[in-house]
C-alpha cells in the first residue's frame, strides 16, 4: 500500500497497515456470514429437503420391511439395487435443491441490497466491492456444495439407521443391507461430483450475479429471456443452433467430463467412475471459469457504481 505523499498525519497509516494485511480475509469471512444471516434459505433449503426425504424414506422402509424377501427378489443384475436406489435419489434431490437455492440466491444477491437501500449502509463500511461480490459468489461456489455434500452424508446415515432399525424391529434379515456400493466411497464420489458441478456452473452463477447487479427489476427474466431470444434468433435467422447447444453443454456437459460412463451410485467401486483428469483437461471447464471471472469482475464494477434503486 503506497499512501500518497500528501496524506494528513491523522491517518494512522504505519500502525494500521500491518493488521490490515493480516486481516485481509476477515471482511470476506464476515461478508459470507452476513450472506447466510440474510438468506436463511441457503442453509435451510437443503436441510428441509433432506428432512422430507428421511420422512418419506421411513415410511418406505416400513413398507418394504413388511414384505420380507421383496428386496432380494426385486434385485435384477445391472439394474440399480432397490436399497441403494433411494440413496442415489436422495443425493440427486438434495443436489438439485442446492442448485435451485444457489440460482435463486444469485438472482437476489446484488439486487435486493439496492431495492432496500441497504447498499448505502454496507458501502459505508471498509469492505471493497470485490470482497462483497466474491463473498456472494462463494455461497453457490463453496458454501452450498459443502453444505449439500454434508447434508447428503447425514441423510444417508439417517437412512441407513432407519433401514437398520426397521429391519431389526421386523425381524427381517440384514443380508440385503450389505450394500453393493460402499457408502464412504460413494460419499467421496459425491463430494467430487458437487465440486465439479459447482466449478462447471460457475459461469451460470456469475451471469446471474452480474444481471442481479445490473437489472433494476425482474432479474430472472433479464437473466433468462435474452439467452432464449438469442437461441431462437439464431435458429430462425441461420437455421443453426450453436448457441442453444453451447447453453446445453453448459448445463449438462459436466457429467460426461467429470465421470466415466457408469453411474457412481450403482457400482461396486464408485471411485473408479471418477474422471478428474478428463474434467481438468476439458477446455469447457477452464473457459467457463474464465467467463465466470469476467462476469464477477463486471458485477464488482457495477456494484462500485451502483446505488439504491
Amino acid at each position, binding site marked *: 500500500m503506497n499512501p500518497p505523499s500528501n496524506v494528513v498525519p*491523522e491517518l494512522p497509516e504505519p500502525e494500521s497497515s500491518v493488521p490490515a494485511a493480516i486481516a485481509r480475509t476477515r471482511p470476506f*469471512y464476515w*461478508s459470507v456470514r452476513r450472506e447466510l444471516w440474510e438468506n436463511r434459505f441457503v442453509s435451510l433449503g437443503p436441510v428441509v429437503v433432506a428432512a422430507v426425504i428421511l420422512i418419506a424414506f421411513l415410511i418406505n422402509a416400513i413398507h418394504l420391511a413388511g414384505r420380507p424377501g421383496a428386496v432380494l427378489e426385486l434385485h435384477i443384475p445391472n439394474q440399480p439395487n432397490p436399497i441403494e436406489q433411494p440413496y442415489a435419489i436422495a443425493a440427486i434431490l438434495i443436489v438439485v435443491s442446492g442448485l435451485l437455492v444457489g440460482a435463486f440466491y444469485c438472482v437476489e444477491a446484488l439486487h435486493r441490497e439496492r431495492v*432496500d437501500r441497504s447498499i448505502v449502509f454496507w458501502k459505508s*463500511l471498509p469492505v471493497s466491492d470485490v470482497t462483497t461480490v466474491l463473498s456472494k459468489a462463494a455461497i453457490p461456489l463453496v458454501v452450498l456444495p459443502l453444505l449439500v455434500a454434508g447434508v447428503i452424508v447425514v441423510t444417508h446415515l439417517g437412512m441407513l439407521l432407519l433401514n437398520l432399525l426397521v429391519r431389526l424391529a421386523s425381524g427381517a434379515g440384514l443380508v440385503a443391507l450389505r450394500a453393493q456400493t460402499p457408502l464412504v466411497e460413494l460419499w467421496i464420489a459425491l463430494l467430487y461430483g458437487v465440486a465439479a458441478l459447482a466449478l462447471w456452473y460457475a459461469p451460470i452463477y456469475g451471469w446471474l450475479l452480474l444481471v442481479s447487479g445490473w437489472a433494476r427489476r425482474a432479474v430472472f427474466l433479464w437473466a433468462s429471456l435474452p439467452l432464449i431470444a438469442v437461441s431462437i434468433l439464431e435458429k430462425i435467422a441461420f437455421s443453426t443452433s450453436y448457441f442453444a447447444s453451447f447453453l446445453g453443454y453448459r448445463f449438462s456437459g459436466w457429467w460426461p467430463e467429470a465421470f466415466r460412463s457408469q453411474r457412481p451410485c450403482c457400482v461396486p467401486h464408485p471411485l473408479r467412475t471418477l474422471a478428474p483428469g478428463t474434467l481438468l483437461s476439458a477446455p469447457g471447464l477452464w473457459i467457463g471459469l474464465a467467463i465466470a471471472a469476467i462476469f464477477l469482475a463486471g458485477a464488482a464494477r457495477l456494484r462500485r457504481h451502483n446505488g*439504491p434503486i
Partner: protein
Amino acid sequence: MACIEAHGLRKVFGATVALEGVDLCVERGRILGLIGPNGAGKTTVLNAIAGLIPYEGELKVLGRDPWAERELLTRDVAFMADVAVMPRWLRVSQALDYVAGVHPRFERAKAEAFLEKTGVRPSSKIQDLSKGMVAQLHLALVMAVDAKVLVLDEPTLGLDILYRKQFYDSLLNDYFDRSRTIILTTHEVAEIQHVITDIMFIDAGRIVFRSTMEELDSRFVELTVHPEQLGAARTLRPIHERQILGRTFLLFDGIDLDRLAALGEPRTPGIADLFVAVIGQAAGQAQGAGR
C-alpha cells in the same frame, strides 16, 4: 487543517448537471450544515465525500480521493443516511458482530455501552425497532469506530420530534469533540441551528452562500419593523422582506445593530428565514441575468 476539501467539484447524471463546480473546505473540529432545496445537489456532495459516486474536479477527504480509496477511507469516515438504509433483517447483535468483523477500529464495548443506555436489545431485529432506536443503533456503530469525519445525509428523516432532538443531543454529547468533523444535510433546518458551526446554502448545484455561525449572528439581523419606520428601514436595503399577520419583517445583511434598533425590534434570524432570503435572492439574480 482541512479535513474535507473540494475544488470545482462537478457531477453530471446523464443530461442533468447535479453539481456545477462546488468549492468547499471543512476544517477539523467543525460541524458544517449543507442546506438546500430538493434536488439542489446536497446528497450528491455527501455521496461524493463518502466515495459512493465518481465525480469530476478535485476532492480530498483526510487527504485522500474518496472514489479511488473508499475502502481505506471508510475506516476514518463514517456515513449515515436516514434510518431506512439499515438492513431490516439484521439483528442488533449481528450488526455489532459484522462491524467488529470488518472494521479494524471498531470498539465493541463502546457501542454496547451506548446501546445499553438507549434500551436497544441485542437480540432485536432492526425491523422491530422504532426508527429512533435504529438511528441510535447506527450512531452507536459510528461512535464505536471512532470516525474522524462523520457524513450525515438527512439522518433524522422520518423520526418524530423527540427522537430528532435525542439524536442531535447524542451526537453532540457522546460523539462530537473538537478532534472530529461533521458535515450534514437536513430539511429540518431549525433543529440544527444550534448544532452547526458553519453553514452553506446550495442551490442548483452551486454553493450560493457560506458563513460561520458566529459570522452569521453578527452579520445578519431580522428586524420586526415599526410600521411608521418601514420607509426608513427600506432605504437600508434589506435583502428580504416578508409580512406575517400585518407585521413586516426585514432581513438585513451587515447593517449596524444600533441603527436597526431605532427602527424596530432586531433579532438573530433563523436559518430558515435566511435560507429563503438568500435562495430567493439568488433566484432573482439568475432571472435578472437571464433577461
